[in-house]
Every structure is written in C-alpha cells, then in structure tokens.
C-alpha cells in the first residue's frame, strides 16, 4: 500500500463527540475525514467513500453492517479487516473500554493505524470524562436546590434561622450516614406528601 493520505470515516450520532474526534485527527495531520449519519443507506455511503479506516461508537447498531464488510464480504472491492493479529488485542481492548471501535482496510500497516486508534480512544475517554463531570455538576446543582428547599420548609414550619435549618440537616445526615442532599430530598418529599 502506498503512503497516500489516509481517508477516515467517522460514524457517530453524537455530533459533539464526532467533532472532538475530527479536530484531533486534523491536528494529527489527517485531512480526509467524513462524518456519517446512521441511515439505512450507510453501506452505500461507505462503499462510495471507500475509507481506509472507519471509526464507530460502540453503541451504534451499524457496527454489524461493518462486521459483514470486514468478514471477507463480497460487497466491497477492498476487504476490511480489523485487527486479525492476536498481538493487537491490547489496542482493541483499549478501544472497547473507551466505547469506540475501528475497522481498518486490509493491508494497512499497524504503525499507520495505531495513532488514529489511539487518538479515537483518548478523545472518546475525554468526552466521557466531560460527560461525567457535566452530569455530576448537574446533580450537584439539583442537590443544592433541594437543600435550599428543605431549609425553607424547616424555616417556615419550625421557625428556624437559615443556619439552624442547615445545621439540622447536617446533623441528620451525620446521624444516618447519608448525604445532606438525600436528607433534604426525603424532607421535601415528606412535606409534599403532608400537603406542604
């Protein structure tokens, strides 16, 4: 295989993640990148593009479409082979752990593929971290909201100051070995049931 520029196709319904990956590949000097949508006509698109590497997220049902192409399919002129060599298990495992899979056209040298797969793995992992942090931030935010509401209930019903209300919640959390937000949530739920 000549050293012509590599052509990469990305199949990911998550636009943000696909963009993050595309940027990474561009930084690594890969310019020929197509992002594909999940459609019934996907196979035709891939055949038309004729990529050297296909990167697809693990949750995408179209993985099975690619599996057939890579299973010495008679559909495409260039057979797709992932990593048929047992020595490359580590690379596949890292990809699966990150939630991404790569299909590589047969005959492409490992040293040309590895940077692409590594990039996909690191970008997918980065995206997962970002996602987790966002989720945690949201949980944190709603936790704070529920604590404020619980404090309000205590202040109204028990005529406490804000500090006293918070201290009451904190004590209960400590005694029951639970988070303050959980205690607050129980209190808000109970108040709602009792017609607060």
């Amino acid at each position, binding site marked *: 295989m000549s050293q012509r520029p590599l052509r990469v196709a990305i199949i990911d319904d998550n636009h943000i993640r696909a963009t993050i990956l595309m940027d990474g590949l561009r930084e690594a000097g890969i310019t020929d990148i197509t992002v594909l949508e999940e459609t019934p006509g996907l196979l035709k698109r891939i055949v038309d593009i004729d990529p050297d590497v296909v990167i697809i997220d693990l949750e995408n049902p179209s993985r*099975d479409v690619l599996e057939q192409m890579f299973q010495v399919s008679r559909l495409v002129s260039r057979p797709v082979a992932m990593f048929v060599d047992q020595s490359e298990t580590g690379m596949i495992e890292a990809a699966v752990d990150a939630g991404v899979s790569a299909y590589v056209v047969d005959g492409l040298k490992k040293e040309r593929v590895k940077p692409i797969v590594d990039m996909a793995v690191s970008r997918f992992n980065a995206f997962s971290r970002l996602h987790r942090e966002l989720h945690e931030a949201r949980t944190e935010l709603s936790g704070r909201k529920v604590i404020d509401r619980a404090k309000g209930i205590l202040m109204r019903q028990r005529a406490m100051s804000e500090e006293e209300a918070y201290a009451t919640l904190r004590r209960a959390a400590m005694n029951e070995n639970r988070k303050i937000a959980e205690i607050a949530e129980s209190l808000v739920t109970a108040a709602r049931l009792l017609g607060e």
Partner: protein
Amino acid sequence: MMSQASPSRGDASDSRTVVCAGFIPLTDCAPLVVAAHKGFAADEGLTLELHRETSWATIRDRVVFGHFDVAQMLAPMPLARSLGIGHIKVPMIAPCALSQGGNAITVSADLWQRMEGAGARLGAAPGTNGAALAAVIKARDRSEPLVFAMVYPFSGHNYELRYWLAAAGIHPDRDVRLIVVPPPMMGAALAAGQIDGFCVGEPWSSLAVDEGSGRIAATKADIWRQSPEKVLGCRRDWADANADTLAALIRALHAAARWADDPGNRDALCALLAHPDHLNVPAGVIGRALTGRLIAAPGTEPLEIPDFLAFHRHAASFPWRSHALWIYSQMVRWGQVPFSAEGMRAAADTYRPDLYRAALAGTGAVIPNASAKVEGALTRAEPVAAGDKTLTLGPDGFFDERIFDPAEVEAYIASFAIHTEPLDGDAVRPADPSGIR
C-alpha cells in the same frame, strides 16, 4: 494482553453473586429477562444485571474483554470466536441454549406480489414460496440483483436464509445480494426500497407487516423445525473460574424458560418484554411470536405455525452438539472457514451439554441421555431416553427432507451443489459495489 477472567463480583449489600449479562432487544431474550425479573436468578442466589446492547459486535466485544460475564448470543457466535474467524480467537462456550426458532423471512409488498404471480401463497411450504422466488429472479432482466438483509454473518438468520434460497436453486452469493441491516432498521429499509427482503428475529417481521411494508414469506420453524437460534455464551476461562455461578445461572435460565413457555404466563411475559427497558414495542405484537400465530400480510387471518418459537418444550434449552456441528457445516459451505478435522472438533466442543447436565442434575429436569442426534430424522413426535423420565422430541425436519448426521459432516457438506469457496487473502473479489442501494 487480555484481562484474566476474574471471579464474579460479590455485592456488598447482600450475599448474592452478581452476573453481568448482555442482551439484544428481541422477543427471544425472554429467558434472561424472566430470570432477572421473575425471581429465578434470585432463587439461585444470583443478581442478574442485564445490559441492553444494539449490535452483536458489541455483545461479542464486551464478553471478550470482560465487561459482561455472559450474554445472549446468536448460536454461531461462540463457534466463530473459538475458531477465530473474523476477529480475535477467544475460546467461548455455549453451556445452555436460550431459544429455538423465532425468525422469519419477510419480503416487500412488491416482491410478494410478483412471487404470488409465480405461485407463492401466504403460509405455503418454504419449498413452494422458494420456487416462486426463483421464478421471479429468473424472469428478471439482467438489472441489479434483489437485495436481502440479515442481521450478522455468524447467525442462524444468515444460514437459514441461504439454506432456503439455495434449496430453490438460488445462489445466495451470485443470484442475489446479501447485506447486513440492524433489526430495528429492517422495516424502514424495506419501505424505502433499499432491500427487497430480510431474515430477522421477532418482533421485527410482525412490525414490518403492521407498517404495511412487509409480507412474511417463510419462517425459521418451517425451514428447519426445532432449530437452534440463541444461546447463552461466555468465555471458556470465565466458565472455568466461575463454575458454581454458571451452574446456578443455567438452573435459573432453565426455570425461566419453563415459565416463559407456559401459556398461562403469556400476558405477563408480553408486558415484561414490552417494557421500555427491554423491547419497548407494543405487547400485542410481541404476543404473535409467543403464540405462533403470525399475521403474514396486513388484514389477513393469522397463520398457525407450530413451534414458531420455543424456550423450554422438547428440550429447547439443551445445547445439542449436533446443532454446533450443523452450524459448522454451514460456515464451511458458505466459505467462512475451510474444513478441517481440528476446526470441526473445536466447533463441537463449543457446545457444552456436560455443563448443562451437571448443573441440572438432581433438579428433576428432563434431560436427554444423548448429546447429539441425527437432525431432521424425526417426522413425528417421538419419546427418547432421558434418565428415568420420558422426553418427547420432534418433529424436527428440514423442509427439503435432508438429514444431517453429525457423524457424517464432511459428506453432508459435499452433498450441496450450491456452495461458496472460501476467499483467500489474494483472491480477486467479484465485487460490484455500484449496485448497492
């Protein structure tokens, strides 16, 4: 290197062993879902954690790399892994079957109309409707071939679709084009004219009929009655390291399959499978596969298909080695793997009736004495030896009345005029991608 199989994670909050299982939302995932939600796993001291996936490739990968302990698998998948075809070689086993039957071959309204013109009828024998399809293909001008979709190269769907086509004289690799389409997209691809037919597990054929785009032309049960479809698959090293857990899981699945096959539980099972966490489709459409009453075309009376889908009756969960060997015969027939005595042994060893027997010993379960049988030999229901009990098997015939003797695999493979040579790495591929719609 691949992570070593680790013993199952114990749950701190109770003494139950946690087992992570992958599944695909299809009607025949029932035994796993029932085991997890109707107390059968708990009865065996297990917490069965179900994880829904959208592709067979991901099911395979997550089992290979230990994200899942076990999974619902297409029966040929553990064989393909043990043989190392198409992906890395990782010895896997099938210690328990999950279902027989459950698939159908559905064609577009337009193709069905042409097939009817050539003698096809709803509910007719596969030979009749296959001959009609062959006549339609013959009569076509030399334009692009008909396109049929299935779900995965290593699947019952692929082999039964090919078996049906080839029996009618249609070469699946020359006269038509076979592609893979994910089950939830089959109906849309048919409606859009991207494919002319497909072979898929329920509820996707019934849904395509309801949408008006599909007509059921044949069923798996009609092509080969009591044929293998889904199995419980796991890595061999996981099974070795977790023998007691696996035995408990086999017992839980055996009890769950019995519950799922009981007509008295049908409504409860439909509701459970219809749940958003499982299939997320209307319960009514799921019920058709469970009762074997399939509506083959919009506005027609249901067809009665005996043994359309079985989880428990006539030893449906028993992992017959003859099933593994039949699957291997088709892998060779269609050029997925060259024949070798060693490969055949590895394929047979993937199915583990010994583990099934050991797990269920003393539970009163009816287990056949034999581990393999001549497939297609029983033309009517017959009692077979099963310890001190009676087990009724059959009829288990292929529609073309061929017999598969597991002692004569090579001769069986050689007996098929229509087959495909394996592609070696340097072979020129007769590919014409231009015709893909």
